[in-house]
């Protein structure tokens, strides 16, 4: 078998991004920054899809992560990015471990809809909480990283950008290793044939539960990084359309490789951003058509473009 180029690409890609950062136009830097936050969440979706379940409620953890980070600043006046990320991980891990106990029993559309219900309940609760700005949300001043103040300095943007790149890299490497481990194989086996997995002595529900927690934590990290990058959070992050977008990007990108979600998220954000600019009245139509084209002609997602070429070469 030929060697899998994923890791080299991840390393090279991250180095390029880190090196390129300072020279990029700032809007591009921000676009990449936000895309990678998305990409990290979609990495989690990829794991779920590999396991054969799809969540229409991952906005729940995207939002929880963001609010975990945000409330630290808002309520406890802690505005250190490092602490925020830790908080996001803890909160989402606990929440998903608990909800996973229920969701592990569900499949298909029911898994999707029950997770949707949970995320919409969080949405409702947040909209009711005027202390956290209700539907307006609030601004997050993540001014320090590991004690060093960056807010207002010349490198402010770059630090947030670099932080995201690094986390995207870590998440990517982790997910790559994980998918190629026994657990990763087991996930695909479950997608193919749960019955046989049980008849080989592994607990389908445990695997789904573990993978659900992992994907939730990734979503939480993505949310926290988004809060840090964007500087504002609101309950929309938990609304079903946000979760829908994650699935959207997941399918758009394809589950062929951990590179797909990261790249897919970037392409999605770019399409959306330019659709907004060039057809402000029909950008939804543009998105919809893109999506149909991909589903129709690239069932493996955009990623299959790369793999196809590789086969051809």
């Amino acid at each position, binding site marked *: 078998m030929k060697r899998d180029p994923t890791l080299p690409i991840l390393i090279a*890609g991250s180095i390029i991004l880190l090196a390129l950062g300072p020279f990029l136009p700032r809007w591009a830097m921000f676009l*990449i920054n936000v895309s990678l936050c998305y990409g990290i969440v979609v990495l989690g979706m990829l794991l779920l899809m590999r396991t054969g379940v799809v969540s229409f409620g991952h906005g729940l953890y995207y939002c929880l992560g963001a609010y975990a980070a945000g409330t630290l600043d808002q309520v406890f006046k802690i505005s250190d990015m490092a602490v925020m990320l830790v908080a996001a991980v803890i909160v989402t891990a606990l929440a998903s471990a608990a909800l996973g106990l229920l969701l592990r029993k569900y499949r298909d559309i029911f898994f999707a809809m029950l997770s949707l219900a949970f995320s919409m309940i969080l949405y409702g609760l947040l909209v009711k909480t*005027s202390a956290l700005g209700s539907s307006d949300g609030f601004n997050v001043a993540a001014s320090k990283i590991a004690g060093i103040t960056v807010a207002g300095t010349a490198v402010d943007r770059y630090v947030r950008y670099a932080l995201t790149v690094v986390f995207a890299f870590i998440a990517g490497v982790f997910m790559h290793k994980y998918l190629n481990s026994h657990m990763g194989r087991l996930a695909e086996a479950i997608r193919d044939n749960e019955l046989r997995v049980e008849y080989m002595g592994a607990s389908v529900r445990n695997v789904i539960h573990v993978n659900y927690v992992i994907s939730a934590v990734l979503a939480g990290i993505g949310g926290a990084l*988004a809060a840090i990058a964007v500087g*504002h959070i609101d309950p929309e992050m938990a609304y079903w359309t946000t979760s829908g977008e994650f699935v959207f990007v997941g399918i758009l990108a394809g589950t062929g490789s951990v590179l797909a979600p990261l790249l897919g998220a*970037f392409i999605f954000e770019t399409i959306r951003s330019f659709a907004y600019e060039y057809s*402000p009245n029909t950008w939804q139509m543009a998105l919809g058509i893109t999506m149909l084209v991909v589903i129709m002609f690239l069932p493996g997602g955009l990623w299959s473009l790369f793999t196809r070429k590789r086969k051809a070469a």
Partner: protein
Amino acid sequence: MNTQVSKLLKCGVTLLAAALTAAPAICNAQDKPIRIGLVTFLSGPAAGPFGVPAKIAAEAIVDALNAGKVPAPYATRGFGGTPLELVVVDEAGGATKQVTELRNLVERQNVDFVIGFISSGDCVAVAPVAEELKKITILFDCGTPRVFEDASYKYVFRTRPHATMDAVAGAMYLLENRPAVKSLGGINQNYAWGQDSWADFTAVMETLKPELTITTSQMPKFGAGQYGPEISALLQSNSDVIHSSLWGGDLEAFMLQATPRNLFTRSQLILVAGEPYLHRLPGSIPDGTIIGARGPSGVYAQKSVLNDWLRTIYKERAENYPNYPAYSVAQAFLGLKTAYEKAKAQGALGTDEIIKAFEYESFDSPSGKVMMKLGKGHQAVTGTAYGTTRTVNGQITVGNIKYYPVERVQPPEGVKSVDWIKAGMKPGKW
């Protein structure tokens, strides 16, 4: 190995795509006209009543300015002779998206000024970004006091007064006309705007009339459309007054469903943001409804050369007269023009000079005099007005209009709305 390389290249190329697409935008930088980014709702429920009227008005104003056809003191072409160019962006999609879009407007579209944002959530979110981008950004229609009461900004201005006065003047008007009011019920959308409006209004009422009883607070979700149960609950609450900050389709649906059920023969209705609704004649708005326009705008704009001008140029492009968002956007353009030309007159057109000129300026607008008196000269204040609907030979109009001067309805600089209301709304020094 070479597969690795080729993949690597592909990866790099895709990532560079962003940088490349920057090229056209950068070229635009050398264009002559002043580029103004206009962010307003083009889709979603807020487009019809707010976003699109604002857009129509903005385009009409820009054309008039470029043609130099605006009444004094705004007769000079464009801004100080330089023509204007609009870049319109949809505000739909949530605060997070708006932050991204603002960056694109400024850094990719290279606009010189940004005028925009109807949703309070978006305003709160974009203000710090505008600050970071060091780009003069004018919030033209959002109402939440939080923007300048919780923070202070150098590059952010708001040329319309904040929402506190909607509640204060509304309550005053109500009590002046219905002194005997004993019970109050409300129906407001379940999101920040609705919650704040209700909280403010009840706070004011409790200060002005402590013995008042609050019967029920209905909080249907935004865009619910079906209000059967809510209306029954309101009917059964037998409230003397029903307060509502509903707007757009929700307001219209609520009116359609509540009127035939005689809710408004039972209770006095006060709509703090009802004005745009008057322009849309859905057929049923009971006489005696108290209507606010969140400022002396729309139907409350007093006759003046500027007002006639706005009404004319707007009517040329739409089938009805401008509503208050149209007036808000006019305030933004004229306020900015004033500051720009003042700075130019002093011979320096740097951002800082324009800001200097903008702070604490006061200027005429179709809805009267606007003074940048709050938020260290970044937050506008005006008086406001309320009136009552009545049908005159088939036409719904507002009568019994009462104007309230700034000091009665707005807290002075440095005092938070909440505290000011609690403290009994003492007129401050202006």
